[in-house]
């Protein structure tokens, strides 16, 4: 039982990170149909900026703020300088642009920061908390709590605010959105800024557990993307469910089956789910009338 709980704790912590990355994917995808493969870079920027700011003597809360702002600015620049000028290009073209952006940002980080791994002190100590025999780091609760807060805020944003609806409308039909008076370029820019912020927050929360370096983005983007698809692309709740599920699968795979093939476990389950539910677990069935 303690063992089981331990795997759960591990899965949920790692899963929460994937979930936050998946959420970032979801937001930009919702607004613009772009799968932003630079999403992992926002996580990296969040973590690395905080590390370097605190190392420079900036108090943690301010460093966190700086990091989130930095990511948001980069998100905005990414939209204004790379996505917006390619307006009207096909989704694949935009995806390749985001891949280019992720290479660019990684290249930038290796110059601005360095190529070392870095860590942050945990927000509330390193003493594990004993839950039914499982030993869980306090930072795990920060990560999970952060994920919960963000997803609730986003849910409210998309379902309760006009701007949120405008984001969804822009995704559903860009032409129609423009015709009802939505400034689509602003909306898409907003979505980049928003998901950059979420990415950065994720990066800051997890760095004390997972460490960070200039090139952690790729793998996070990959897992986050898989998680988003497992949950059903475009659905924030799906992103969370998908992320946690991938995390749990990895943990239980490693714990009960084989640590060598634990990633395989996650992907086999994803493939299996998609075969049965081609729109992901919580994906809206696409209504395309002929």
């Amino acid at each position: 039982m303690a063992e089981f709980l331990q795997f759960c704790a591990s899965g949920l912590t790692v899963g929460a990170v994937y979930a936050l990355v998946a959420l970032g994917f979801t937001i930009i995808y919702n607004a613009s149909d772009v799968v932003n493969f630079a999403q992992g870079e926002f996580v990296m920027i969040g973590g690395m900026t905080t590390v370097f700011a605190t190392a420079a003597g900036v108090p943690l809360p301010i460093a966190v703020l700086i990091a989130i702002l930095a990511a948001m600015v980069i998100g905005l620049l990414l939209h204004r300088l790379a996505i917006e000028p390619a307006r009207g290009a096909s989704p694949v073209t935009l995806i390749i642009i985001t891949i280019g952006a992720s290479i660019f940002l990684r290249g930038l980080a290796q110059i601005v920061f360095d190529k070392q791994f870095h860590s942050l002190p945990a927000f509330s100590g390193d003493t594990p908390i004993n839950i039914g025999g499982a030993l869980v780091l306090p930072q795990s609760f920060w990560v999970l709590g952060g994920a919960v807060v963000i997803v609730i805020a986003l849910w409210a944003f998309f379902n309760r605010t006009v701007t949120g609806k405008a984001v969804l409308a822009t995704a559903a039909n860009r032409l129609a959105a423009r015709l009802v008076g939505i400034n689509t370029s602003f909306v898409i820019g907003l979505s980049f800024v928003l998901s950059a912020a979420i990415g950065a927050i994720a990066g800051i929360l997890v760095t004390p557990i997972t460490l960070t370096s200039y090139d952690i983005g790729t793998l996070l983007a990959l897992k986050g993307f898989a998680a988003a698809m497992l949950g059903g692309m475009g659905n924030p709740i799906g992103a969370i469910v998908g992320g946690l599920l991938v995390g749990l699968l990895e943990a239980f795979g490693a714990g009960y089956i084989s640590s060598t093939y634990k990633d395989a476990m996650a992907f086999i389950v994803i493939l299996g789910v998609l075969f049965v539910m081609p729109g992901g677990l919580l994906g809206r069935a696409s209504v395309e009338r002929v």
Partner: protein
Amino acid sequence: ADTIKIGSSLSMTGPASFLGDPEGKTLEMYVEDINANGGVNGKQLELVIYDDAADANSARTFATRLVEDDGVIAVVGGSTTGATMAMVPVFEDAGIPFISLAGAVVIIDPVKEFVFKTPHTDRMACEKIFEDMQKNGISKIGMISGTGGFGKSMRGQCMDVAGNYGIEILADETYGPKDADMTPQLTKIKGTDGIQAVVNPGFGQGPAIVTRNYRQLGIDVPLYQSHGVASKSFIDLAGEAAEGVRLPAAALLVADKLPDDDPQKPVVTGYKTKYEETTGEPVSTFGGHAYDGLMILVEAMKRAGSEDPAAIRDEIEKTQGFIGTGGTVNMSAEDHLGLDLSAFKMLEIKDGDWTIVN
């Protein structure tokens, strides 16, 4: 030509950048240094250096480029075993001496005419660890290894030699090179009866996370790391969790703690001071491998007195009593590494610093 061209292809970015980065910096630093002091055989050295990002195919292309396009006469480089092995045929075909900076024993076993290496082999690291265990009466262990090239290869070597030391491996877990949490694997090890110690072959950030998770789960048997984490940044990353961790490593890490009569002392202190002053980063044994490789090559060139690759190769093979950061090197036609177990020191982390275990 009035300059001597030597080449290198390193993993300065990518998954093995923590190897390639200090290696590259070391080479550039010392080539400058050598040139400032009059060069080799009266000629200036010219270093051509490429970043293969640990990709074997790129490494292979750069190897061809070094030989065909740049016309180098010798090569120091290859941060990872995969990249090294991909380059080997090019240099063997071209007859260019190649000193690799990668770990695995396959690079020099079997011996290849033009291929040498400076880092201790993973097999030696296993032997050193098991030797220490034997001394402490440990015979039943668990293993958790990275699935990257380094971890995987060392795991294999350890399995191979465990029997020689009467060591039994009861648990054998792995983790991916970029994994962020190893508590499930460690929980399994923790739950395995009779384990007296755990070994963690691997490099990069993985071992630091393993170490942290190890303490998080309150596992109280000794934890052995490998020479793959032999840099100060491991202690920084693992923090307090690193206390008590043991690992085999070169003298470089404990330069200041070596007895004054140790022949390696001047070499390692010299390198350490220079590296840390120039780069502002803590020294690692990886950069040291590059230093050793470059110096072995330079001395061979001096002895050969020519720029003929074949002559240089012969002289490299004749390296005797060279004192580097990794130990004393005595090469021969059968041994293109030239280090023995004595080159390794068993270290333990105490109060956030390395100490030598006797």
